[in-house]
């Protein structure tokens, strides 16, 4: 019989205790992995989902609100700016592309974004590519003849079941202005998947306030400068005024990441405590098991088993528990991350795609086994030092 077979036999002998210990290891590993995948997933999702435009011009207020609302379609829209701001930017020689955007209400929780065809154009500097899964892009319309056509993000189409040609509206106020689905976009793995795009003309006509306005409103203008070195001067120019602010989206996101970093630091402390508790639990389990079977160990020693073999048997038990617990924890952690990602996405926030394999998984498994060795070392040494004469004395 090999040492491993002996270790397995011991573990089977106290099956419930061994399973519970492996479960505690699995829970610890799952917790660490899921939190890592979710926090990094949030960061990656912001990076992946951010705009390719370098500047965002909107009304004075919170830069974070402007970025979260216009780019990630969360939070409430900031106040409006006049359409003339867009015209000013469009005529500025420092600006290569300016795209107006107007954010409105929502249909079944999916926001309306009114914009122009430029939003979907494949400029050479864009990472994002928009393509149609079915149908067509909305027709170019004029303010006096709105087309009332909508382009749906992939997630909107999937969740609402709308297809090209379908007509829809949200709330009885909008019954007068039903929108017709013109097309559906392919998934972009970002906030655009959860967006209903319409034309500015349609939006302004549907909204009773903007309908009456002579200078139409906008939420923001997305700007790509001709030269990136013009970002600072454009940024400054639109910030000095009392009505508008210019925001560098990455600057806001980096500030959010800084806050996220603080949360991560707190979580790291909590996870370290969790790892220590699991380590302690494993130690107590192995230590008490070793104490209980000192007589058996002494018998094995009397029958010729070497001290090193006894030490290895205890360590093998520890490795088996941590390996099984670790593997279960990796699977559980990934499952937890998937559930967490779904909850976050349904909450209207960022869309996470936790990776199946990261450098952390093998590290976690190795760490669990390493900590298992540490926890098993004292019980193993205790078993190693078990004296035959002291432990084989008659019980009565």
């Amino acid at each position: 019989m090999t040492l491993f077979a002996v270790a397995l036999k011991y573990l089977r002998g106290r099956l419930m205790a061994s399973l519970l210990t492996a479960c505690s290891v699995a829970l610890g590993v799952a917790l660490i992995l899921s939190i890592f995948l979710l926090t990094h997933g949030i960061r990656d999702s912001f990076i992946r989902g951010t705009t390719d435009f370098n500047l965002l011009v909107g009304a004075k207020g919170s830069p974070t609100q402007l970025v979260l609302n216009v780019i990630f379609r969360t939070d409430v829209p900031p106040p409006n700016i006049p359409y003339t701001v867009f015209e000013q930017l469009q005529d500025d020689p420092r600006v290569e592309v300016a795209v107006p955007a107007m954010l409105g209400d929502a249909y079944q929780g999916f926001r309306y974004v009114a914009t122009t065809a430029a939003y979907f154009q494949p400029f050479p500097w864009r990472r994002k590519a928009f393509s149609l899964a079915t149908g067509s892009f909305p027709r170019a319309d004029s303010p006096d003849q709105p087309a009332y056509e909508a382009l749906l993000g992939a997630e909107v189409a999937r969740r609402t079941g709308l297809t090209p040609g379908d007509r829809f509206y949200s709330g009885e106020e909008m019954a007068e202005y039903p929108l017709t689905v013109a097309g559906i976009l392919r998934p972009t793995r970002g906030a655009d998947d959860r967006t209903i795009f319409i034309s500015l003309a349609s939006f302004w006509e549907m909204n009773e306030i903007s309908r009456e306005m002579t200078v139409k409103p906008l939420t923001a203008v997305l700007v790509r400068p001709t030269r990136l070195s013009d970002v600072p001067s454009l940024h400054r120019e639109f910030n000095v005024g009392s009505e508008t602010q210019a925001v560098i989206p990455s600057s806001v996101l980096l500030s959010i990441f800084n806050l996220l970093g603080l949360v991560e630091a707190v979580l790291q402390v909590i996870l370290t405590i969790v790892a220590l508790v699991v380590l302690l639990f494993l130690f107590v389990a192995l230590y008490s098991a070793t104490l209980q079977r000192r007589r058996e160990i002494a018998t094995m020693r009397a029958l010729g088993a070497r001290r090193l073999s006894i030490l290895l048997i205890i360590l093998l038990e520890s490795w088996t528990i941590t390996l099984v617990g670790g593997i279960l924890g990796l699977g559980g952690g990934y499952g937890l991350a998937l559930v967490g990602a779904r909850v976050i996405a349904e909450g209207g926030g960022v869309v996470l795609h936790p990776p199946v394999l990261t450098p952390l998984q093998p590290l976690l498994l190795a760490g669990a086994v390493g900590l298992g060795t540490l926890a098993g070392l004292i019980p193993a040494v205790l078993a190693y030092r078990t004296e035959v004469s002291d432990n084989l004395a008659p019980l009565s």
Partner: protein
Amino acid sequence: MRGWYRKSSWALGVALLTSATFAGAQDVPRLTFAQLVDSIRAELELTQKIKSLSGKEVEIQGFIIPAGLPDLTFFLLSRVSSIGNYCCEAPVGQDETVYVFAARADQVTYDPLRVYTVRGVFEAGLQKDAVYGISLFRIRQARVEEAVGATIMKVGGPSAPASHP
């Protein structure tokens, strides 16, 4: 006697290694934005002095303007901060910003009001790129770290404030 020799050779080795390391650090030329501005001639031609630094490792200090992705793999380095103060003129052109391509992402914690030291391979001369557009000064394979107590406002002068209140 043999022990003394061994100790002496160890000490000599450590001393040589240390001096070589410091010498290597000091060899990297420190550029300033004032030097970059001075190097520009008509039609964005550059002086030979600045051109001679192309392909060499340089160091420059400035404020980060995250004009690229929020992982700071690419950013602009500017002589003034992008936010927080309106006391200085904003940089207006190619001569006052350096396009930085970082060796790896997330090297520093971003703070728009802090001065950073960027060290990497310098490139001088007009270049057009599909993603980053036209640039005049670039630093590639850049390593970034916070420059504590840096003076960037005046070339060769006495200590100047790193940023404005």
